[in-house]
Structure formats: C-alpha cells, structure tokens
C-alpha cells in the first residue's frame, strides 16, 4: 500500500569562502553609443551568472540589460575573479560589477553635469538617460554623454573595482569569528508516497521557499532552485558511488549511478522570500548551492511521516526504506504512525 507523508526542512547557508579572501574584480566600459561592456573573470557554468551581472551593470548605469555585453573567462582579458564557486558570483562579483559601473557612471556624471548645468551629485541614470533628480525633463541620452566624454572631453567612462567579502578570522580554539559576510535561508517541504511493501519512494511535490536577497532575475533563481532540488532528490534517494573491497568504483557510469531522470522529478513550487541585504548589490545575496541543501532532509522527514521509519544513512534506497519499515514494526510499533492518509496502491 502507498502511504503519503510530508516533511519539512529549513537551512542556512553562507555566501562566499570561509574567512579566506575571495575577491572579484570587474571592469565596466561605456561605449560611445551608451552601450557597455563588462569584463569579468568569472565563468558561465550554466547558472546564468553573466545575465545577472549584465543586469547589475545595467541597473547601475541606467541602461537595459541587453545594452551590456559581458566578456568573461579569459585570463588574458578579464580581471581577477575567485570564480564560479561558493554561491558567490551574484554577491561578490555582483558587488564588484556594481562598483565598477558606479565609477564609470561617475565619469559620465562629471561630463554631463556642466552640460545640464547642475552638480554631478544631482544626477541620476535611468532609461538610457542621465537626468536631473526630480527634474526628469532635464536630461541627456546616455549615448550623447558617453560620446561627449570619449571624444570631446577625452575622459573615457571606464570603471574598475573589486570586492572582497568582509570577514573576521575564527579563533582556532573556539571557532568564534565572523567567517562569512552574509547568509541565506530556506525551507523546503516535500510530499512523498511510500510503498510500504517495496520501500519505493515517490516524491510528488516540493514547495521551496528560498531567500536570495533581491532576486536580480527571478526566472534564473527559479531555475537554480528547480535544478538544486533535482540534485537533492538524487542525494536523498538514489545516488551513490560504490566501491569494492579493494577501493575500486563499482558503478562509474550513468547506467548504474542512479541520478534523477525527468520521470523521477516531482512537481516543484518555487517561492522567493522577499528579502533585502544592504551589503549585496541592490540587496542581492545568492542562491546556487542552498537550493540542494534542504531537499534530502525534507524527503527523509516525509518518509518518516509516511511510514514511521527513520533512515539514518543516505541514500534512502527502497531497500533501506523497507528495512527501516520492517525494523520499526519489530520495535513494537503495532500500527504504522503518521499515516494520516493511506492511499490505494497500484495493485489495489
């Protein structure tokens, strides 16, 4: 019979390296037509980080996302970056990008101020324009300002900046210190069906509420969460590198290393928790790794809820789950607890 259960798990996760310096640098160059080029040493490994960085640069410069072209991942061309690791790109490289764009913008403002007859600090950049705060009709297209800066004033609007998350080393005896600049938080709730005769677990639904600070691009945040959950499901139920007694891997292939296929994925509901971190670029923190942190815990709690069996070692394969069910029965649990709703099995 299939028994349904639900499980909850929450977590916290830091952004960036543990104390160790993990700087990023960035350069933003505004072209004479008001478009911009961002140089970053980070690497696009699928997360969409280049899109996010373009959005951050665009926001700071007051232009559109596709006005920013990102050049990345070339040590001859791009500035130092600690890389696509530790969920740090949006926060650390994002901060560097914003600061670099701010410097380029400052040059534009210095050029624009006399053209508009105001002080630079009275200006703002919006909608591809540089305009006077509270007097948006007094404006110049950013292209005109950039062109003027480059070819009349001879002051190219280029900004370079770097960012390293502030930390305080941990005491070696007590571990006390400030190892990370910021943390994100999340909760996932899993709903599963457990076949109490075979131990098979089917994950039906996962609700994921994640904090990433400001979501620079909610669509990409959703993608990260959905993907992280698939990894979490593999960790929870299926995946394991096995060794023989001589230390050689038994299953180094995708036939016998069981990762989730499209058929193994549940319905996922993503919720982005409103949050703003004043230390991040436009309030952003990060989202990459945390997405797969609470999934296994939530699923294992749901299994426990469904059949009253606690599996203490991952992955909770069907065989382990069945063994745990049998054990919990032996331990005098006359009735399976937690079976709020027993639903019919396939054979019934």
């Amino acid at each position, binding site marked *: 019979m299939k028994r349904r259960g639900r499980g909850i798990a929450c977590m916290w996760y830091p952004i960036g390296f543990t104390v160790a310096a993990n700087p990023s640098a960035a350069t933003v160059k505004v072209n004479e037509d008001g478009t911009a080029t961002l140089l970053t040493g980070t*690497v696009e490994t699928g997360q969409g980080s280049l*899109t996010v960085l373009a959005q*951050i640069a665009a926001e700071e410069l007051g232009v*559109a*996302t596709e006005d920013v072209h990102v050049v990345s991942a070339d040590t001859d061309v791009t500035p130092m970056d600690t890389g696509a690791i*530790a969920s740090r790109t949006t926060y650390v490289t994002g901060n560097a990008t914003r600061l670099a764009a701010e410097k380029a913008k400052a040059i534009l403002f210095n050029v624009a101020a006399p053209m508009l007859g105001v002080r630079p600090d009275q200006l703002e950049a919006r909608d591809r324009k540089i305009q006077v705060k509270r007097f948006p009709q007094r404006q110049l297209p950013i292209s005109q300002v950039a062109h003027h800066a480059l070819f009349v004033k001879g002051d190219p609007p280029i900004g370079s900046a770097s960012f390293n998350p502030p930390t305080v080393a941990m005491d070696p005896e007590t571990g006390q210190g400030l190892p990370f600049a910021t943390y994100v938080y999340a909760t996932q709730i899993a709903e599963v069906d457990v076949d109490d005769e075979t131990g098979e677990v089917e994950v039906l639904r996962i609700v994921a509420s994640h904090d990433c600070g400001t979501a620079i691009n909610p669509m990409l945040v959703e993608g990260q969460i959905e993907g992280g959950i698939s990894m979490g499901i593999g960790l929870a139920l299926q995946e394991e590198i096995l060794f023989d007694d001589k230390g050689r891997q038994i299953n180094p292939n995708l036939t016998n290393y069981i990762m989730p296929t499209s058929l193994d994925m549940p319905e996922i509901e993503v919720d982005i928790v409103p*949050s703003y971190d004043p230390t991040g670029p436009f309030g952003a923190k990060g989202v990459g790794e945390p997405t797969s942190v609470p999934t296994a815990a939530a699923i294992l709690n749901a299994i426990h809820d469904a059949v009253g069996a606690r599996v203490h070692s991952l992955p909770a394969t069907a065989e382990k789950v069945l063994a745990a069910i049998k054990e919990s029965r032996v331990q005098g649990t006359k009735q399976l607890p937690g079976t709020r709703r027993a639903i019919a099995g396939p054979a019934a």
Partner: protein
Amino acid sequence: MNDKLRVTEKELTQEALRDPTEALRVPVVTPPVPYPIETLVPEVRQQTPAVGQRATRPDGRLHGLGQTRYIDDLTFPGMLHAKIKRAGIASALIKRIDTSEAEAMPGVMAVLTGREIPVNSFGPSLQDQPVLCDERVFHAGDGVAAVAAVTEQIALEALEKIKVEYEPLPAVLDPLEAMKDDAPKVHPPASNIYSHKIIKKGDLEKGFAESDHIFEARFSTQMVEHVPLEPHASIGMWDSNGRLTVYSSLGRITLGRTDIARTLRLPINRVHVVATIVGGNFGGKNEITQEPVVALLAKKTGRPVKAVYSRGEEFTSSTTRHPIIMDYKTGVSRDGRILARQVKLYLDGGAYCSWSETTLGKACILSPGPYNIENVEAEAFVIYTNKTVTGAMRGFGAPQVCFAYESHMDDIAKALGIDPLEIRLRNAFSEGSISPTGQVLHSVVVRESLERAAERYGWQESQS
C-alpha cells in the same frame, strides 16, 4: 585493421576530396544561421530597472541552436588527442613504467609520465595531488601516464601497451579506521587526519544538565558525483614565444592558471586560460585535472593537444561529494527549545585534500542548524582514505549536515509531541540572532521561509 593503414587511408581520402567531381564528399561545414534576424529589442526590456527582470539569457539562443562551443567542440589544425592511463589500484608503489611499446605505435606522437612534470603536485589548499603519479598511487582513479596520438582510439589502445609494475600497499578505505593510530598512512608520514575544526559556544555541560530530554543519533551520507553533462575537457597549445594557451572546462580560471603555471614552472604571464562556456560545474570543475598533461604533451609534440574525460573518468578521476558520518547529541527543554547541541563530523576526504578544508569548515559552522542554541560544540575531522578525491560540491557539506540536523529535529519534535513546523519556529534564528561562531546575523528570514513554505504547501490544512 592496422592503425597506420587507417591514418594513411584518411589522408588519401582527403586527397580525393579535392577532386571536383567528388564535391559532395567535402566535409560540410554548414554555415551557422545568422541569428538574431531581428535586431529589435522587446519594448519591455528597454526600460530600466534591469534588476528584477526575467531577462532572457544571452547564451540561451546559442544553446538552443546547438551553436554554443564547449571545449570538445573546438578543433585546431594538427590537433592531437590525449588519454590518461588510470592506476586501477587503490594504493601501491610504482616500481616501473614501461612506455616503449606504446611509443612505437603508429599514430602515437608522445607519451608522458609523472617524472616529466616539472612540479608534480597541485591542489587548492594543500598541494598533495600529483598530476600523474610517479612514485606512489593514492587511489584507483589516479593517472599514471598519458598518451597523445592522432586519434582518440589510437591513444586509448596505446594506454593498453603501457606496462606499469606496482608493489601493492594496504589500502585504507574507511575513514573511522583511517583515524586510528595504527592505520596505514595514505600520505606517509603525514597523519590521515589532515584538517580539524572546532567551534565552542556557551557551556555544553551546563546546557545538557539543564535539558529535560537528551537525544542522540548518528547519521551518515554517501559519496556523490557531480555529473556535469559535459565531461572535463581541455586543449593545450603553445606559441613560439613559449606562451601556453589552455582552453579548459574550468569554473575558476584564476586558480587554474596559478596551478598550471606552478606545475609547469612557468611565469604566470606565460599562461593563458580560456574557459568558454562550461557545461555544468556544481563544484566539480573548480580545480585543474588534466591541463598540465595536455600542456606538456603539446610541448613535446609541437601540436595542439585535446583531452576529454570519459564518463568513467568523470566518476573515478574527478572530485566527488564528501561522505560524512555525523554524531548529534541534543538537549531540549520540555517545550522543545534546544538548550545544547554537540556535533561530531567525520568527513571522508578521499586521497587528496582538494576543497576538503572549505567543506570541513562550512559543514562544521552550519552543523548546529539555523537555530538559536546557547550551548554548542561542533567538531569536525577530515580524513584521508585511498578512495576517489572528495572536493567541492554544491553546498560544501551543508546538504549532509542539514539532513542530520533536520532529521534529528523531527525525531525530537515527534518525541515531544510538537508539530515539526512549530518546533522549528520556536528555535529558528531571527534578525540579530547570534550564530555558533558568535556572529550577529542580519537579513535573517528563516522564519519567513518556514511560514511561507507552510502556507504554500497547506501545512495546517494537511494535518488531520
């Protein structure tokens, strides 16, 4: 068929291709369709603010058209293919490597062993990993020699001709066994426990003494592979100024360049690393693997050399997720407030350090969970074993400890008859909470995430 013959045949065919009557045979390079056709930008995205937009990815269209060029999609004139011979034995001394037969094979352009590598060690924190093992094998996936040949198949067949003589050593595979004083040392004379971390806050004994209930449990997790769909790939080539360019599937080019320069004993400005687009990382592509090998084979042959991991090598010879054995002891009050928590973590580090120190640190710091606990002690050890290297993987130990602390939390809730959501809300961090390392936390929304998830799920309604 004889390999030499096949190579000649290929050349002959290419001659034949120049015959105009054979025009059909000319390998066709379909010119890429010049997208986008339209240059108009959708109105909605012309406007600022840019932040918060569901902006499309500039690489999205190239991906969908199959036009994204990953490393394996790049070819250069005269490029050779490299393959690495794997030890297949977990712990051994290398007595002898005989490459003569492989070198004599038609189509084989160069063979490389560890002794030819200028500085044969690398690693992001400890430089304990050889590029190719020269004296000793530390795990079965270690490389012991490499071949560059005109085709991948010839390179593979040449690996079979390389004879390596081993003197087997006892292998230590279990981290708890490896911790014992009399266990064989993976990297003698160094201790198998190669990093340790401790966090102490409050008074643990006092906390347990004040607790109404004490719960104890051991949890453990498995070794997991990242499985990026793109296997590790790299291409090395030199120019006549002695400058090296490496195309590689690396998520962290700065460190990659440092390690390549270090192992090849080159000034850093003579090394150029390009990562194009990486086909999946998840932490598994944050350090070099075969880059120095392709570089040295390229140097030996004077030709560009490409190497791509097989799917098998992805498992045996790249990094993996740390299995962790986790002991939790938690003291709680009758109403479910956590008063004291003691955690001990034993991380299986595999054969080399890789990102173990980072993983150890994060796992240890995060292990008490996102909860206000006055009295905490968390201690973590990472231990060498003669197994596949464990390194960075999405979450650096956090998924493992989360599984433990959240399973533990539910068991406590159940024993006390408190709803799992409620017990978390009673303990969860809030703005200004103090972390186990004494850090005052800001922009804390763990409660909000709990409440929103429960609301979205219908937690209250689903309770009967």
